[in-house]
């Protein structure tokens, strides 16, 4: 997981460096913006994979730098999405600051061992251990999804919220009487301000604890 995170951090940083050099030479083309937009989900993923490591903050700071550079030079790409009557925040930079993940709950009906392809009840191989160079994994062949919980640390690092609705009333209050839902383009200014840090609202919650959500 950490190796994946480091690779993502390096990849996102390379894209950031390429875009920064272009901007410094006066290039504000769509190709340049594309580099920054491409770096955003990669660096968000780097944060997910580097959680609880010293490199997490490095990935966080790099993502903030990408966000600021994009917002300062390519504002049109920082508009909130309008869909089905409401605005949505889908920017990886903004979403990455809320450290919440998704964890499914399921009834395991049937599975097989990746090493011997028997039912794990019938073999001696242990998930996560390596046999003749091959890591044993459990292949789930039949399961019943029973719920999803909001957790601080999902097993799949990138199992995250991809879109957050923005209450229209709050936008109207902020933007004044000229605000017309759907017609008004709403730009996110988050990256123009200094970062307040990440929030961790689900550190103490999860399956069977407060804030679990049944589907």
């Amino acid at each position: 997981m950490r190796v994946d995170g480091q690779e993502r951090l390096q990849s996102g940083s390379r894209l950031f460096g390429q875009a920064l050099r272009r901007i410094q030479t006066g290039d504000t083309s769509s190709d340049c913006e594309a580099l920054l937009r491409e770096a955003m989900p990669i660096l968000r993923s780097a944060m997910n994979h580097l959680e609880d490591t010293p490199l997490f903050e490095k990935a966080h700071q790099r993502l903030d730098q990408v966000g600021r550079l994009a917002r300062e030079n390519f504002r049109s790409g920082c508009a909130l999405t309008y869909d089905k009557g409401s605005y949505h925040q889908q920017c990886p930079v903004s979403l990455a600051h809320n450290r919440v993940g998704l964890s499914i709950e399921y009834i395991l009906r049937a599975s097989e061992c990746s090493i011997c392809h028997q039912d794990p009840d019938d073999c001696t191989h242990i998930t996560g251990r390596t046999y003749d160079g091959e890591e044993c994994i459990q292949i789930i062949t039949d399961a019943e999804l029973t719920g999803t919980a909001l957790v601080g640390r999902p097993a799949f690092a990138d199992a995250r919220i991809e879109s957050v609705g923005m209450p229209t009333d709050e936008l109207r209050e902020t933007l004044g009487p000229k605000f017309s839902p759907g017609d008004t383009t709403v730009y996110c200014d988050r990256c123009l301000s200094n970062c307040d840090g990440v929030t961790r609202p689900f550190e103490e919650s999860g399956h069977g604890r407060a804030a679990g959500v049944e589907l």
Partner: protein
Amino acid sequence: MPHLLTVIPGVPGQVGLLVDNRVPYPESTRDFVKSAKQAGFDIEYAEPRDERRYVGFKALEDWLPVIVVAKELLIGVESGLLVELLKAYLSPAEARLDHEENAAAEIDATEVPTEVHSPGGALLHVDWRVRDGDKESQFLADGDPESVIRALAQFEQSIRDES
């Protein structure tokens, strides 16, 4: 002779959870039992295979199976038994050194020990019980592996001190 350790249905912290009107086991159970057996522990399920149901959660946490051990059996064997049982799951190579003779026949020769870690994640959920006739002492813990091991060692020592 009764088995030293018995895995009973239940998921730590998930009271009232039922599957097909049965109390389920956490997904980690089979790996936990295998690692314990390979490390030389005498451990068995309370229910036959066709009556067991399993549930899984995809948080970076690890719900261990609920285990019952008789006090008279616990204090009759070497100290730190429960701690070694947990280490067998978390750190297969380390635990195997202590139980190598007993376990030699069951270890797969092709298996390469991996680093010390919690297979399911950073946070452990444990519900283990020591029975003494009608009386039961319960070890409940939610925390990182090192903290849980420390607390488990204290729990085990308190059981020994009672006797």
